[in-house]
């Protein structure tokens, strides 16, 4: 019999019941909640007279709607009354059911996918869900983690389980070594460019190979975060020393005897040598350039040395029409050089790229330089209050402010523009977030997905440049 993949092991560990109809009951160890996708679930629970099955499996924080300025005012600082009601509703629901919540003024508040790992609420081997598609982030810890809809949020609250069908196994192997200035973000954009936004549909993707093994946890989280942009709900990386070192000493990580017991189990969380994958995709890491998306889907991406594609060269009619539509929306011309795209705003943040390592990379590029005067705005939004504090301890805030970038408070911010931070119509933005869909960052806004270093380089120049040309 063939060995098991990491996904097979995680599935078996959480299987409560295999039903005859092919569906299965899967146990959920950790449930993360935020204000946008939970209110209707709590309301459903109340209407049915149900209570949470296991309160201590849940942890909550407001992130999507929170402003990134005036945070000392707490909830009163939320100008939009509709947003305020949603944040207040999360608070009331958590208080009523006794769920741990990092409220808006708590220093531990932040983007839900930043605070889970930061607190040790995300631990290797867990099954983790959240009403947010970027829950795949937590797979970087060898977790079975994926996004769910609001009905499933209610289902998990009420039963601690989900009804699931087992996915297929895919291995994405990134071989070799990355060149200087090339980051986890460039790797995942290159993967999506290769397999497409539906390439991973129906699969759980394990990311492996030398490049992944050499990445920090931050880099691995960035890659797993965007597995969903390749169509895969689940992205994973096997547990190794890097994982265990990261988890050690976190506030909610096990201690003493339980730590040793946990580590012994975590060491088994990798695919067996003879495991069989339904699909294997390989990339040469040394060939990956810093990436820039030019279109309205994350698969519409190319190296910074590339050009905007010419739809006339595309043979597939539906794809050709997609390129024509994207170029029209983005205001770009076929064969235009990526480095000729002029920018209006720069956004460094989001659950993809707002961890301390991301901020260090960006600060390293802007240090001693000034933001281009042609930009309307360049902002840095740390992923959590604790990331912000750490960055300030390292003096990164001063580097950003001296260079002319705004230093904000934590939240999802301009990644999806549910708060006041958004693009104006027709504005081009270099963004470290995860989606370049039409209108994603604001009505008519034009998003280009890049790494923090590339966003920082773009901020200094007012257009895209190869960040490697700015490195000594």
């Amino acid at each position, binding site marked *: 019999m063939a060995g098991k993949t990491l996904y097979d092991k995680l599935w078996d560990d959480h299987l*409560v*019941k295999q039903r005859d*109809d*092919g569906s299965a*009951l899967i146990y959920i160890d950790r449930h993360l909640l935020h204000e*946008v*996708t939970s*209110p*209707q679930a709590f*309301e459903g629970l109340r209407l*049915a007279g*149900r209570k949470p099955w*296991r309160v*201590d499996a849940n*942890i909550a924080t407001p992130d999507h*709607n929170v402003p990134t300025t005036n945070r000392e005012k707490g909830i009163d600082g939320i100008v*939009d009354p*509709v947003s305020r*009601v949603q944040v207040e*509703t999360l608070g009331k629901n958590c208080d009523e059911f006794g769920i*741990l919540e990092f409220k808006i003024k708590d220093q531990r508040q932040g983007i839900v996918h930043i605070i889970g790992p930061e607190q040790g609420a995300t631990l290797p*081997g867990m099954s983790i869900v959240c*009403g*947010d*598609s970027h829950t795949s982030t937590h797979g970087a810890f060898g977790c079975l983690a*994926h*996004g*769910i*809809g*609001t*009905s499933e949020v*209610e*289902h998990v609250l*009420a*039963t*601690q*389980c989900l*009804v699931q069908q087992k996915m297929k196994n895919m291995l994405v192997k990134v071989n070799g070594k990355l060149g200087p200035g090339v980051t986890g973000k460039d790797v995942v954009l290159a993967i999506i460019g290769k397999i497409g936004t*539906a390439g991973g*549909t129906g699969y759980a993707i394990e990311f492996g190979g030398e490049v992944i093994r050499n990445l920090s946890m931050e880099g691995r989280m960035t890659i797993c975060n965007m597995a*969903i942009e390749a*169509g*895969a*709900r689940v992205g994973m990386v096997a547990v190794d020393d890097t994982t265990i070192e990261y988890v050690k000493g976190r506030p909610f*990580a*096990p201690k003493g005897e*339980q*730590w040793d*017991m946990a580590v012994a*189990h975590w060491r088994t969380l990798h695919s067996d040598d003879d495991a069989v994958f339904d699909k294997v995709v390989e990339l040469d890491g040394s060939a990956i350039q810093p990436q820039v998306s030019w279109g309205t*889907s994350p698969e519409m991406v190319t190296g910074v040395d590339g050009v905007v594609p010419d739809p006339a060269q595309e043979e597939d009619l*539906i794809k050709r029409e*997609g390129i024509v539509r994207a170029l029209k929306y983005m205001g770009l011309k076929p064969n235009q050089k990526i480095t000729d795209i002029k920018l209006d705003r720069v956004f460094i943040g989001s659950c993809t790229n707002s961890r301390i390592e991301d901020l260090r990379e960006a600060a390293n590029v802007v240090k001693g330089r000034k933001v281009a005067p042609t930009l309307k705005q360049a902002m840095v939004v740390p992923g959590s209050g604790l990331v912000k504090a750490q960055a300030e301890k390292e003096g990164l805030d001063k580097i950003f402010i001296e260079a002319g970038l705004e230093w904000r408070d934590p939240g999802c911010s301009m990644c*999806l*523009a*549910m708060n006041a931070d958004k693009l104006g119509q027709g504005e081009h933005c270099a963004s470290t977030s995860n*989606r370049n*869909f*039409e*209108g994603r960052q604001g009505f008519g806004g034009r998003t280009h997905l890049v790494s923090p270093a590339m966003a920082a380089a773009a901020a200094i120049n007012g257009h895209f440049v190869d960040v490697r040309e700015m490195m000594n």
Partner: protein
Amino acid sequence: MRALKQHQGIVAPMDRSNVDTDMIIPKQFLKSIKRTGFGPNLFDELRYLDEGQPDQDCSKRPLNPDFVLNQERYKNASVLLARSNFGCGSSREHAPWALEDYGFRVIIAPSFADIFYNNCFKNGLLPIVLEEEIVEQLFQETYSTEGYQLSVDLEAKTVTTPSGEAFSFEVDDFRRHCLLNGLDDIGVTLEDADLIREYENRRRVTAPWLFDAFN
């Protein structure tokens, strides 16, 4: 949840691939704490010429005449015909809520994004996967015949055209069972409450660090 056994309705063609959930329901409408009322804002940025705001009277807004759902012949459509990877992007269940609230009961496409596909079944909405060539044929028939309707039978797992041509589709048994009967699957899961407790008791011994970490 509303059950769905058979459905017949007018088909509206959504002729682009990778329709994402931001397109189906833009973020500003996600601030609602209700499950209903999203229909008027379905495809908001494509449907209207201005930027929509929550709690706005949409009947006074300027319509985009080029958008498919604004064309007279597709008014009252309840079957949405779409291209590949429909519903990609965020997990927001507001997307199926908006489609259902607008009046759609069935969506046909060559492929769907996983989370969206799953969310549809929780809301009385049936996503049907048909082969690319068949979907292309249905697009052509929809364009060439005003008032074109399709009949869907979930029991028999078939889509039938006005000419009587029938196509079968696959759907897993549990989802089909729940949708046919309008079942709340929380109730079904809780029938196994004892099994869940047994699982937890085992895990408390083998993996105690997974419990009571926040105390």
